[in-house]
């Protein structure tokens, strides 16, 4: 008997739905449209067969040092210096002297640190030729032209910042951004060996031709990282003084492709996450090792274990309320509520990714529910203090539990760790006679129904 039987049932149904959908195709993206799946696969086959030939050729040429250069990689999306991650700060990008061989040979893998205009640091991973970071025209990338495509230092391809949704689910996940000053240890699983965006092809590529990339910036206290390659343990020194490391391995059979995770923390405190098994730090002049986060009550059997870091708690609940006015105007078209426009005067400036305004709709108590969190949006752009901020929300009554009014809150937060400030809140009522607009998210009913 579980403590939360509802959650157990929900997870069972979600696992059933996921399994039944994955039975349709071994590695198709869950975002693929079911109706076009078969056609897309048929169209890809000849391209992939041709690509495989070119891939072998490109890698063989590269092994002999003769690989032609192609068109440079272009930035993804529409980069804006004051929105999202921002754009690379001119002259602030650095190709690290890390060179990691690929299991099949060819240009080695390398890593670049890109500082952005919004105070983020992006770790960009690619193949290296002639001291340039780039992508290979193989596996569906750059029309399988077999060339090396350099990535200029002022280009930031589509990023996979943790916490944001990706516009697609393919191999473009070889970039990740975090706030400057944070230690990071992450991995990208099932990335194309081209190091570039495979535009969905990666889902159809054999696992052994995909790569798992483990990377990190652990800070000046880090000395080495330990990991397993198959059953063989390895320890590698990190690149001082930033504590950088990069590990490239073949993807394992049956491994999920184009996924990843990232652990963030303070320098010297960050524990290892897979595939790392331990990180050796030098703290107060002494070498010590930090193992993975153990389940509560479990002993970490590491010798020379580092002292436990101090984690602060309770930051989720402390909030200061400024009681500033917040204005909401419902957007209604032909009696259908299509969204809401929220306006407020920013009491504080947002000058980078460290600060942000969020517009939240707290979940209403529903049949005894204590809340799922919030629905809402993040501003993710720079704002001057005193500026009028206008932001649009989708249909705001989705989680109103049948009530016709919701509260909309504007919060300001500085990251990481500081308690958010409640700028103001206002209640908004759904007009009588109005019909709900499209839901903010699609819920696909499974065999048991959601």
């Amino acid at each position, binding site marked *: 008997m*579980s*403590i*939360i039987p*509802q*959650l*157990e049932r*929900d*997870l*069972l149904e*979600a*696992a*059933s*739905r*996921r*399994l039944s959908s994955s039975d349709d195709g071994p590695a198709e993206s869950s975002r693929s449209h079911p109706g076009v799946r078969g056609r897309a696969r048929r169209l890809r086959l000849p391209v992939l067969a041709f690509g495989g030939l070119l891939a072998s050729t490109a890698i063989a040429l590269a092994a002999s040092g003769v690989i032609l250069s192609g068109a440079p990689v272009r930035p993804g999306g529409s980069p804006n210096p004051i929105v999202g991650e921002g754009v690379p700060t001119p002259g602030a990008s650095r190709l690290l002297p890390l060179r990691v061989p690929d299991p099949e040979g060819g240009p080695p893998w390398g890593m670049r640190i890109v500082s952005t205009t919004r105070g983020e640091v992006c770790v960009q991973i690619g193949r290296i030729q002639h001291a340039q970071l780039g992508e290979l025209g193989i596996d569906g990338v750059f029309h399988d032209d077999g060339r090396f495509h350099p990535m200029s230092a002022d280009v930031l391809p589509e990023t996979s910042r*943790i*916490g944001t949704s990706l516009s697609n689910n393919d191999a473009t996940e070889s970039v990740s951004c975090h706030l400057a000053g944070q230690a990071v240890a992450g991995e990208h699983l099932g990335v194309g060996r081209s190091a570039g965006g495979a535009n969905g092809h990666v889902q159809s590529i054999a696992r052994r031709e995909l790569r798992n990339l483990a990377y990190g910036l652990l800070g000046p206290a880090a000395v080495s990282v330990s990991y*397993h390659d*198959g059953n063989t343990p390895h320890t590698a020194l990190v690149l001082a003084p930033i504590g950088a490391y990069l590990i490239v391995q073949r993807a*394992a059979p*049956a*491994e*999920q492709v184009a*996924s990843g*995770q*990232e*652990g963030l923390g303070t320098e010297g405190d960050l*524990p290892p*996450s*897979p*595939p790392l098994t331990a990180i050796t730090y030098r703290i107060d002049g002494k070498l010590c090792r930090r193992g*993975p*986060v*153990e*389940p509560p*009550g*479990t*002993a970490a*059997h590491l010798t020379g274990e580092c002292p436990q870091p101090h*984690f602060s*708690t*309770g930051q*989720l609940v402390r909030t200061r309320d400024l009681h500033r006015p917040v204005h909401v105007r419902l957007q209604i078209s032909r009696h259908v509520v299509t969204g809401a426009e929220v306006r407020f005067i920013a009491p504080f400036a947002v000058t980078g990714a460290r600060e942000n305004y*969020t517009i*939240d709709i707290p*979940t209403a108590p*529903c*049949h*005894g*529910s*204590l*809340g*799922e*969190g*919030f629905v809402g949006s993040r501003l993710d752009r720079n704002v001057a203090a005193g500026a009028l901020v206008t932001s649009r929300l989708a249909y705001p009554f989705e989680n109103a539990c049948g009530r016709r009014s919701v509260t909309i809150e504007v919060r300001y937060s500085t*990251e*990481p*760790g500081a308690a*958010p400030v409640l700028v103001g809140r206002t209640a908004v009522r759904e007009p009588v006679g109005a019909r709900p607009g499209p839901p903010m998210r699609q*819920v696909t009913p499974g065999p048991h129904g959601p």
Partner: protein
Amino acid sequence: MMVCDMCGEPTLIAARSDPEAFASFYRLFERRVLGFFMRATRRADLAADLTAETFARAIESVESYDPARGRADQWLFGIARNVLGSSYREGRVQCTARARLGLPRLVLDDHVSETIARLTEGEEQATVALARLPREQQHAIHARVLEDRDYAEIAGELLCSEAVVRQRVSRGLRTLRARLAGEQ
């Protein structure tokens, strides 16, 4: 390759193709994950939501779990740590995986909330008292009492005899009982 039965590995591996196995995996770790989040947030509702998000992410990535790269419980708590970290950063409980999977909103009644809140009752005292024990006694108690492992296995790992492990556990527990009783 060694498979760690107590760490949920067989269950998690089975969960790749059997939803019921995932439900078993949930039951196996529910209490510990809820306790982990209770300890971090001290709120039953947040602990429940963070737990839901953790297991939702586990469903999404169960296919990528590789026993060669770590135990199932370490894998799960790695996800839990990420969920907690990103929730702190965002200032809100993460719910992206739940949304993708279409999980409905959690409904907690008072009984469930109280049960969750009680998971960490008295734990601080015991943790502090445990940390004050000699290191070899801490290891022995962790392995025997909290991990429920055999004396022979612990002895092999600590390179000592079973009798020594039994003695360390016994002495450690006696000291703990005495200290906790003295503090009440």
